[in-house]
């Protein structure tokens, strides 16, 4: 058998010297370098490629570009498999393996094709209407729906490819490299602007490679390659073939996907598969061209029905005949020109079916002279197909009536349709540009620009090669000037002699059709299997807004995003509802213009790099002890230090005991630290904290509570006076950045009369805590020049000094209630100091403890953690901390809110303690509190458990909780339901260990 039976001579962009082999549905074929998968399939006579989304109807290659609704592939197998790329956009490579996307077990025998026969029972919105009710049954049929839904299959494993992402900037982005785009880039490039020319095709200006016209006196093909060479030589111009501009966002921010290795055999691919360009353009030229419009008639979706423009591309770019015996259906003169050229080049045109009464252009005469039959005022009533279309039925129509007595059958192996043009306004519309309906073209055209952009050429309804060359050139010049390009030496636009521009083509949103034929499906949206009947149903059920019609019927959803199917739908809905198409309007065009892989957005920001990790200078030491880490914001903090065989629970219990009986060591480097300087620091502190700061002496520390302006606790920490105008503030780890910016906001925006300079010094100091009764004895062995006796170094004070020559700043503050020294040291010495402490502390069984032990220790004392005991809805009073709220000093943030009627209520949720009745039971954190032992819903919830642990120091479990009117419930027994049990606990004061505070001095 002859290989590639549909391959003819010619083909401007294929390389016949380079033969490529590939597989489709398990069968081997040959193609050429430069082919798309679609053109290679057609060359081999394969036109039926897939089945449709909902009804699993046979579908074939319909177009030659991004608008392709049918030929969806499952490209490659195994880890590299890609669901749903369009065969028209797949650049053929050697050993490519593709399968049809939506059929099982095989393209030609597909189980779900029964849906086509069941279709009277599967109307639009069928799933919603039927399957979501009764809800109880959803689980029993969900899997059936899920299996039937969707098209291609993603590989369940990780994406084996990598992706590159970069930030890019330019003066002028030109999207699309047709005649208009190419001249736009040329003009802007010659002006010296930084230009990017992007096209999703792997060949720039592909159409000019086979256009018949002459440009500047040269064949278009020659002019094209000279122009591309000129652009390539300009250092300020970047040419990006294989690059889809898929998203157009605010302020000329655009996303582009560049395919780097998709066109190589899998084994030969190196480096990232695709690159995401995050582009900010000063000006954008939208040279996105136009699509040819499909026609809506009964069974208009058979394999072998194809756009006439696609047949031209296949013939002249790829040297492939889409069929050998063609009929063309059209409403415009341009189709005659295409037909003539095809007819001259080996694609036999059997007949032209013209929907109009008269055709006027010169090519209709030429076709007649060539003996091609022309049926004027005729419509298509049906098509019949085996593996491809084999016969159509036509009949004359007049005034909307079809003369069915004059039906006629025409045999053919390809039916080319041409319904006029759809200017591709997708990116224009994405960028918030306003559209208007143009009655001459029966299409929506760009009207008011949304941003700094200029549509040109066919994208704004300018047709004809000569016109597009000039229109693009002007857009490029204007864009370069608007972007401030230095010189204006762009030369003259290229000249081209062509026959007159576009003829008017009357609207045929749907072809005239016999009532009796309306049972047959007339597809408006091939992608989503939406028919004329579905649109009618939506109107009958009241979904008349086009956005509602879209959601009800799925019209224009998914990869289509309205770019191809919608215009006919708008027209049909307009006719059905007696509105004009302009009144119906369009649905919203959304990114992505065509599908892109998810991995593109991740780039290298995945796995370990998905989110920044902040590490303390002691991180590696903790890791070497096998300490697991707890995430606090981006910080990784040592959670606990398991000895061999120890469980989490055992390790934490051991650490908690050691820190109270001997000495524990803790890495507190993550605590936020803010350096405050200036003449007004005390005033600032008085205004941001609830307590008074006027009298704090140098070298002394004070605990402070910060409220939001709503009176709710926002953060707490200890602030130290270094000198009268210089303070050192600490914040919780998670709130460090927030508090820093909070202070800045008040200083910059509200208290502009205060002179205070804030600087984040969190990382200027590592912070090592020695905690427990032995802490003083240990530190005394290390420190050079500080007297640690309680009288000389009292609680809540700070001293600068040295440890074995290292400069340190030591704070006597405590978050555990034990004697505790916080040693601040330069991070580059942190490990040295830590190791000195460990060595010297060995005789005291020094024990590193992690954040979990810290939480138990502070909870035993009833110390809150902001964010654990609080959730942004607690006043100081709720937490029993009225003692820290000054009633005598002036205003502070949140003060006024404390007297609002709601915040001043006495029965708000209060912080209380809970002691489980069975001392070994540990309450679940987050558990809800109720006052009924045997609950039957609904039960009013009184609050929840915020912190809960087993304390080896108490010998029992305990918890902190927020409880409605809690302080009035002391001694009550309440209940916490958990899983299938109810745990009883007694309400107590929220303090459990060393209630008198005797341990603080050791």
């Amino acid at each position, binding site marked *: 058998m002859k290989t590639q039976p549909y391959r003819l001579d010619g083909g401007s962009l294929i390389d016949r010297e380079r033969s490529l082999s590939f597989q489709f549905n398990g069968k081997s074929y040959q193609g050429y370098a430069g082919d798309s998968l679609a053109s290679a399939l057609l060359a081999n006579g394969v036109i039926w490629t897939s089945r449709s989304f909902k009804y699993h109807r046979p579908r074939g290659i319909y177009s030659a570009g991004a608008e392709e609704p049918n030929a969806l592939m499952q490209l490659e197998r195994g880890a590299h498999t890609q669901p749903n790329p369009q065969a028209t956009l797949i650049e053929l490579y050697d050993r490519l393996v593709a399968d049809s996307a939506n059929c099982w077990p095989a393209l030609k025998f597909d189980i779900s094709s029964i849906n086509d026969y069941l279709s009277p029972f599967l109307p639009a919105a069928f799933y919603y209407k039927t399957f979501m009710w009764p809800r109880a049954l959803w689980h029993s049929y969900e899997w059936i729906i899920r299996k039937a839904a969707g098209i291609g299959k993603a590989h369940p494993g990780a994406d084996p490819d990598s992706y590159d992402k970069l*930030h890019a900037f330019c003066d002028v982005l030109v999207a699309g490299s047709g005649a208009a785009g190419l001249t736009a880039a040329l003009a802007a490039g010659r002006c010296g602007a930084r230009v990017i020319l992007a096209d999703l095709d792997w060949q720039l200006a592909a159409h000019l490679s086979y256009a018949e016209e002459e440009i500047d006196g040269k064949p278009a093909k020659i002019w094209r390659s000279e122009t591309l060479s000129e652009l390539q030589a300009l250092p300020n111009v970047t040419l990006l073939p294989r690059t889809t501009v898929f998203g157009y966002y605010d302020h000329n921010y655009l996303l582009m996907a560049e395919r780097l290795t998709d066109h190589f055999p899998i084994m030969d691919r190196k480096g990232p598969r695709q690159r995401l360009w995050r582009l900010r353009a000063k000006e954008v030229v939208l040279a996105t061209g136009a699509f040819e419009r499909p026609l809506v008639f009964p069974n208009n979706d058979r394999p072998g029905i194809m756009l006439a423009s696609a047949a031209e591309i296949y013939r002249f770019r790829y040297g492939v005949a889409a069929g050998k015996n063609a009929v063309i259906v059209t409403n415009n003169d341009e189709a005659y020109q295409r037909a003539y050229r095809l007819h001259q080049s080996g694609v036999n045109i059997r007949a032209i079916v013209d929907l109009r009464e008269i055709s006027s252009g010169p090519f209709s005469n030429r076709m007649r002279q060539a003996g091609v039959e022309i049926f004027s005022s005729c419509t298509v009533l049906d098509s019949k197909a085996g593996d491809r279309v084999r016969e159509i039925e036509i009949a004359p129509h007049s005034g909307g009536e079809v003369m069915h007595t004059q039906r006629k059958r025409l045999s053919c192996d390809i039916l080319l349709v041409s319904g006029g043009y759809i200017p591709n306004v997708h990116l224009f519309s994405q960028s918030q540009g306003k559209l208007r309906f143009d009655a001459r073209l029966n299409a929506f055209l760009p009207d008011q620009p949304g941003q700094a952009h200029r549509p040109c050429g066919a994208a704004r309804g300018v047709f004809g090669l000569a016109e597009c060359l000039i229109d693009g050139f002007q857009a490029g010049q204007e864009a370069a000037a608007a972007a401030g390009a230095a010189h204006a030496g762009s030369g003259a636009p290229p000249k081209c002699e062509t026959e007159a521009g576009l003829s008017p083509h009357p609207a045929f949103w749907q072809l005239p059709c016999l009532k009796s034929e309306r049972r047959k499906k007339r597809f408006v949206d091939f992608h989503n299997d939406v028919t004329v009947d579905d649109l009618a149903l939506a109107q009958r059920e009241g979904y008349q807004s086009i956005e509602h019609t879209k959601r009800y019927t799925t019209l224009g959803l998914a990869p289509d995003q309205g770019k191809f199917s919608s215009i006919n739908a708008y027209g049909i809905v307009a006719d059905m509802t007696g509105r004009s198409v302009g009144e119906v309007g369009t649905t919203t065009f959304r990114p992505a213009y065509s599908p892109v892989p998810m991995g593109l957005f991740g780039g290298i920001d995945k796995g370990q790099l998905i989110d*920044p990790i902040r590490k303390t200078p002691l991180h590696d030491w903790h890791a070497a002890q096998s300490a697991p880490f707890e995430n606090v914001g981006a910080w990784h903090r040592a959670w606990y230090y398991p000895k061999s065989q120890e469980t989490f629970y055992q390790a934490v219990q051991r650490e908690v005991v050691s820190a109270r009986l001997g000495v524990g060591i803790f890495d507190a480097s993550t605590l936020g630290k803010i*350096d405050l300087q200036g003449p007004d620091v005390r005033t600032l502190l008085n205004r941001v904290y609830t307590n008074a700061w006027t009298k704090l002496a140098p070298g002394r520390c004070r605990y402070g509570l910060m409220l939001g302006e709503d009176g709710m606790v926002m953060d707490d920490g200890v602030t130290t006076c270094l000198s009268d105008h210089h303070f050192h503030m600490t914040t919780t780890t998670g709130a460090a950045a927030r508090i820093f910016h909070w202070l800045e906001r008040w200083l910059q925006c509200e208290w502009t009369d205060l002179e205070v*300079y804030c*600087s984040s010094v969190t990382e*200027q100091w590592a912070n090592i805590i020695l905690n427990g009764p032995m802490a003083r004895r240990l530190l005394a062995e290390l420190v050079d020049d500080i007297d640690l006796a309680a009288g000389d170094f009292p609680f809540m004070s700070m001293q600068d000094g040295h440890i074995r020559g*290292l400069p340190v700043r030591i704070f006597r503050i405590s978050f555990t209630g034990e004697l505790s020294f916080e040693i601040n040291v330069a*991070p580059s010495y942190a490990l040295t100091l830590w190791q000195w402490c460990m060595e010297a502390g060995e005789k005291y069984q020094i024990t590193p403890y992690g954040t979990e032990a810290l939480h138990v220790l502070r909870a035993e004392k009833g110390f809150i953690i902001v964010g654990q005991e609080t959730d942004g809805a607690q006043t100081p009073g709720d937490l029993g901390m009225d003692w820290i709220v000054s009633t005598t000093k002036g205003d502070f943030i949140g003060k006024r809110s404390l007297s609002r009627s709601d915040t001043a209520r006495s029965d708000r949720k209060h912080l209380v303690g809970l002691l489980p009745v069975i001392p070994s039971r540990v309450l679940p954190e987050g558990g809800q509190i109720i006052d009924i032992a045997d609950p039957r819903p609904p039960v009013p919830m009184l609050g929840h458990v915020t912190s809960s642990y087993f304390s080896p120091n108490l010998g029992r479990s305990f918890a902190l909780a927020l409880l409605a009117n809690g302080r009035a419930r002391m001694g009550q027994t309440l209940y916490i339901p958990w899983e299938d049990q109810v745990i009883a606990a007694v309400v107590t004061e929220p303090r459990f260990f060393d209630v008198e505070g005797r341990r603080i001095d050791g």
Partner: protein
Amino acid sequence: MADILAQRQTIMSSLLAELPAASLSLAAVIFAEQPHRCLLQLRAKADCPGLAKGLADVHAPPLPDYNRFTENPDWRLLRLGPDEWLLAGNAGSNRDGKAKEYAGIIHSHLSGRGAVVDWSESRASLSLSGPEARGLMMRACPLDLHPSAFASGHCAQTRLAQAPGLFWQSDAAPRYEILILNSYSEYLWRWLLTSLASRGLEATRET
């Protein structure tokens, strides 16, 4: 004191040590660290007379415009905001390790109407050069680094990958110098190396 200095270690030094010292001619990007760089954050109203005096007293270069830096053999002076500058010691200038001393000199001129804060210990100082240095920075930060938009003498505080960072361009090659908080330095380092490796590019360190 010499013993003490020997105990100093930075996260960035240990990360750089992981990198093979490959041939400079093959490397797409060449990294180098200036450990323990003297970094002083200066805060004062721009018209504060003490500021200029203090800077003159430590022989700093003249005050720069926003997003620019000035330099002399010893220092670089960066403008970070309306009332904020950063004074950075140059490699080989013998400023490093003396932050406290220089801070004291400048501070003595401010009469309490400003602040000098030592940042030397908080940030790693990493430079990158080589043929792919710009390409790498284009991936890391959302700024236009084309020579017409960002050149020698420009600096910026911005995002480097997903971390806050600061960098400047120190020559036309270009060479960039990055300051990154210590806690983020390993994240950024891995990010930069992963970006290069994913594109098959080699990195090395200055020796």
